[in-house]
């Protein structure tokens, strides 16, 4: 954190850039093993059913078909690595039964010589189902005891947390705002489709799995426990992966465990890969939240009470759900100093594709509700929304009631003020109701209305206090001074492998080019929690620091011996040279030193190895604020996001270029969450399982984004760094909703915000005769006609 670093803090090119830009990088879908067979899944056409019988006789007679396997032969993962912590918990991790619980739920797998044969084979299989009544609405599912999706019913989890005295809190409030919110089922839609897995089972019982999972070591353990193979003999190798965003935070539904099992059955490598349509219909997506929230504040703008009731739509099965709710709780309660807060959360099963981990992990949903509440509170108080946040956020050193720990580094105030400045908030914002100045020089004329909005958020880094969260690293020096960094860090594109190399190089005093980062391979690299919870830079970075520090200490000890210096601690390493600059002025290159002790002195033959494995000291909160400027076409309801600013407290930007990339990417994904994305499901059937109808933001539509990096210096983090990846999209939708309100005076409380909904809201507001100003509808024909904007 001294600012004198040579590698950390630099905009270094990522170490895999060359592989990727030349097309040489091999992704999950590219992996080919000699002699591999091809598997396809037969998926349930029913949202809720029991599989009664399977007739695969015609299939097995087809030339080239090797096996047909029932899904019920393979355990399904219905938890997370939380469940690894004890045998009792692990029993809850796996589910094995004959039921299917959403359209697309795997029923069986066919293995054949090639994909075409596998597809033809599927068509020949007869499955007999006992069709059961489905339930699709979580609010209804909560009430139905006659339709039981799981044995214990439809409620997967319930929590009620109380801080302070809610009634007393509201009694102090001068302003109370109460609303309901709902959010959409957003899906990751990574460019590499979910689900290509190749498993191979060798004669000596070693199972090798090529998987795109974000958490290779947890996959290793799941597979080991599910199939009864010792962990030492399960090896998970991760190729390059084309984006995950949480969609691969575990095993992919119906993929790795089935593929591994098939490999053990047919004794040949087996490839199981999903089409884009299967990705859209049968893999995890973001939990839709239904939130009822009541917020109270004093006229001075102090938040005094908040009451939240959350219903989460888990879908047919739960994997990440309890922790998602916990995240919503922690981040919602944590960010502001609200002394009286109750939160009730219910996770409900429905017969729809399962929900799971997705960038932000419950926080974007909670944030949308809570920040919208605050936006409305600010408006009622006639207060600048930025000021409301500045007045109420929990700062460094203040006690966080959820973690019962004081807040560590906190750069939220800087995020708010610098972010506001970057957008021109001072010039562009004014309290509503707007005057006719809204139609003036800011560019709005007639039907086009502009507005600005903002929102703030807190998120976490890692899962130190909620889940097993190990990070490990091994640093090995070679005889030429080059370094192998063994890490199971999972890089989906964030650049974390580069960042870890930067940290390693910095601690060791060598150049980035001297570090070779290992493959993400559980057979090579030690136990690591993988990528989720924005943890790799912080958590794995700490492990790398510790391992590198241990290696460095050993190097210095050897250096002292070599240079005949008594006190090793006065030696330094920089640019790959060990110096005794404070003493004799002697020096030796790292390569000469290592060669001597590895192969030069036959009585030593010693390799310098540094190791670390453990947890971090903290789970630091990361903070941010998103600002948005929008233009609404009040004739069509269409929203164009003109400008956005994302200001984030990253502790320390180990690689500012990577941070900017996360910000522009995350904010753009947030625009999609706000305005264009969501699986449309009717009677359990996904109606938009393709990119034509599931709209992702494209280049011409991406807003102009200004990233602002705030460095508060997290003392427990590597060189002060903490997490960023998820934070970037958490308050984007909230900011856009706030901006839409500022532009046209309607509160959009349901994501995604479609033009139809805006138009309906405008019409309803207009019909409501002046309770809220509505923009163009209040204007005369002349202005409307003069707009002349093209649709």
């Amino acid at each position, binding site marked *: 954190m001294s600012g004198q670093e040579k590698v950390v803090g630099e905009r270094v090119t990522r170490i895999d850039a060359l592989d990727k830009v030349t097309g040489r990088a091999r992704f999950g879908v590219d992996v080919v093993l000699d002699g591999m067979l091809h598997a396809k899944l037969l998926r349930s056409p029913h949202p809720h059913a029991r599989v009664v019988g399977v007739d695969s006789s015609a299939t097995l007679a087809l030339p080239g078909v090797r096996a047909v396997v029932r899904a019920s032969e393979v355990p399904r993962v219905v938890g997370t690595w939380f469940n690894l912590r004890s045998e009792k918990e692990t029993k809850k991790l796996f589910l094995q039964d004959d039921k299917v619980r959403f359209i697309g739920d795997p029923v069986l797998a066919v293995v054949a010589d090639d994909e075409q044969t596998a597809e033809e084979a599927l*068509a020949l299989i007869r499955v007999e189902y006992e069709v059961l009544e489905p339930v699709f609405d979580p609010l209804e599912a909560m009430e139905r005891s006659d339709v039981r999706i799981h044995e214990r019913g439809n409620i997967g989890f319930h929590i009620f947390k109380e801080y302070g005295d809610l009634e007393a809190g509201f009694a102090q409030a001068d302003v109370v705002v109460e609303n309901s919110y709902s959010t959409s089922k957003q899906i990751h839609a990574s460019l590499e489709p979910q689900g290509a897995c190749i498993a191979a089972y060798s004669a000596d019982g070693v199972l090798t799995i090529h998987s795109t999972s974000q958490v290779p070591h947890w996959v290793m353990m799941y597979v080991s426990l599910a199939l009864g193979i010792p962990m030492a003999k399960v090896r998970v190798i991760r190729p390059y992966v084309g984006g995950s965003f949480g969609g691969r935070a575990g095993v992919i539904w119906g993929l790795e465990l089935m593929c591994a099992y098939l490999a053990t059955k047919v004794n040949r490598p087996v490839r199981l890969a999903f089409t884009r349509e299967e990705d859209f219909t049968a893999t995890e997506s973001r939990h839709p939240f239904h939130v009822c929230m009541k917020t109270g504040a004093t006229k001075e703008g102090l938040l005094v009470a908040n009451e939240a009731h959350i219903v989460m739509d888990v879908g047919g099965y739960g994997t990440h759900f309890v922790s998602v709710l916990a995240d919503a709780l922690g981040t919602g309660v944590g960010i502001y100093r609200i002394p009286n807060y109750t939160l009730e959360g219910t996770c409900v099963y429905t017969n729809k594709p399962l929900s799971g981990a997705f960038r932000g992990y419950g926080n974007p949903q909670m944030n949308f509700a809570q920040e919208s509440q605050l936006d409305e509170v600010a408006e009622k108080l006639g207060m600048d929304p930025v000021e409301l946040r500045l007045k109420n956020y929990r700062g460094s050193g203040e006690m966080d009631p959820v973690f019962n720990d004081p807040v560590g580094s906190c750069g939220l105030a800087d995020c708010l003020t610098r972010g506001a400045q970057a957008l021109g908030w001072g010039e562009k914002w004014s309290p509503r109701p707007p005057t006719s100045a809204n139609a003036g020089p800011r560019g709005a004329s007639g039907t086009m209305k502009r507005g600005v909005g903002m929102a703030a958020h807190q998120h976490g880094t890692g899962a130190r206090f909620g889940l097993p969260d190990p990070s490990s690293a091994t640093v090995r020096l070679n005889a030429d001074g080059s370094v192998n960094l063994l890490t199971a860090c999972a890089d989906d594109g964030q650049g974390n492998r580069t960042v870890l190399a930067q940290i390693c190089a910095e601690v060791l005093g060598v150049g980035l080019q001297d570090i070779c980062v290992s493959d993400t391979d559980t057979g090579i690299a030690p136990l690591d929690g993988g990528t989720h919870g924005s943890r790799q830079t912080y958590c794995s970075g700490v492990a790398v620091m510790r391992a590198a520090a241990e290696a460095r200490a050993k190097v210095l000890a050897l250096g002292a011996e070599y240079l005949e210096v008594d006190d090793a601690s006065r030696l330094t390493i920089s640019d790959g040279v060990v110096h005794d600059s404070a003493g004799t002025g002697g020096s030796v290159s790292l390569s000469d030193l290592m060669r001597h002790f590895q192969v030069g002195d036959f009585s030593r033959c010693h390799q310098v190895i540094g190791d670390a494995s453990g947890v971090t000291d903290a789970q630091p909160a990361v903070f941010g604020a998103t600002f948005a400027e929008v233009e609404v076409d009040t004739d*069509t309801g*269409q929203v164009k996001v003109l400008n956005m600013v994302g200001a984030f407290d990253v502790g320390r930007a180990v690689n500012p270029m990577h941070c900017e990339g996360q910000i522009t990417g995350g904010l753009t994904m947030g625009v999609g969450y706000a305005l264009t994305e969501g699986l*449309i499901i009717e009677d359990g059937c996904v*109606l938009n399982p393709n990119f034509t109808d599931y709209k992702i933001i494209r280049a011409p*539509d991406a807003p102009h984004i200004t990233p602002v990096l705030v460095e508060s210096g997290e003392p427990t983090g590597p060189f002060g760094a903490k997490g960023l990846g998820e934070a970037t999209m958490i308050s984007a939708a909230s900011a856009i909703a706030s901006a839409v309100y500022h532009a046209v005076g309607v509160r959009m409380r349901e994501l995604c915000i479609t033009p139809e909904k805006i*138009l309906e809201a405008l019409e309803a507001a207009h019909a409501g005769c002046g309770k809220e100003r509505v923009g163009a509808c209040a204007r005369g024909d002349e202005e409307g*006609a003069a707009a002349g904007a093209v*649709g």
Partner: protein
Amino acid sequence: MTVSFRPAEYVRPRTVEEASALLADFGGQGAVIAGGTDLLVKKPAHVKALIDLVDLRLDHIVTDGSSEGAENGESTGNGRALRIGASVTVTDLAEAHHALSGPWSMITEAARLLGTPAVRNRATLGGNLCNASPAGDLSVALLALRAYAVTSGTSGVRRIPLSEFFLGPNRTVLAVDEVLMEIGVPATPAGSGAAFLKLGRHQSSVDIATVSVGCLLVADHGVCRDVRISLGAVGPTPVLTHAPTEALVGREFSPALMREAGAIAAADVHPIDDVRASAVYRRKMTAVLVRRALETALREV
């Protein structure tokens, strides 16, 4: 989902007659392929033979001086009609600013808004029309321009006004053995202005139209002499709406009149709810887009 698109035959006829004969031979199991950007998405299982039209070289864009008058028989203003070969790519249309000038520039606009650049580089005019999407951008634009299709089959050559070309979603009047050869666009009279507008689901640069409008009008000192409005994505085929014409002809253009025309058009269409938009929204947007198209077309006069 099975992928069973496995055509066993592939032929490249040199002439249209040869193509028609092949289509007749293969019956319902033969399909023509030009760019392939629709066919290879649909991958229809029944197709056993692909008839590649690339060697037919139907890639002309010509304006000729023959007096292909407007359907209403008035004397032609620019005196020139347009013929576009069915194999012309959408990119070529989008870039043909010189040839497609004046009111015909709405064709380049429709082409520009169709799909994405790589799709446009392969997709053809003929393919887009024969795909007969109710939201087909080129279909809607050309329908407003009174375009007609020239087809050739074993029974001979036909000229089919586009208003009679589309039967339903993805269905045209083409017989099994017929090949679309070119599109003809009659000359437009003096005082013509045209516009093509397309609305997607949100401010998206790439989308199938939620509603699209083609508009060709003739104005004389601010008075409407004629107007022809086509609409996409509000019916089972691209449609013409005649009701606004009756309301507009003979009257002086004004913002209020255009708003009225929009409302009339909205009342004249019968859109459906689908995954992209509701019928209610489509009606509202019909009104908005028709009004805006009239405004834009008037400015082009």
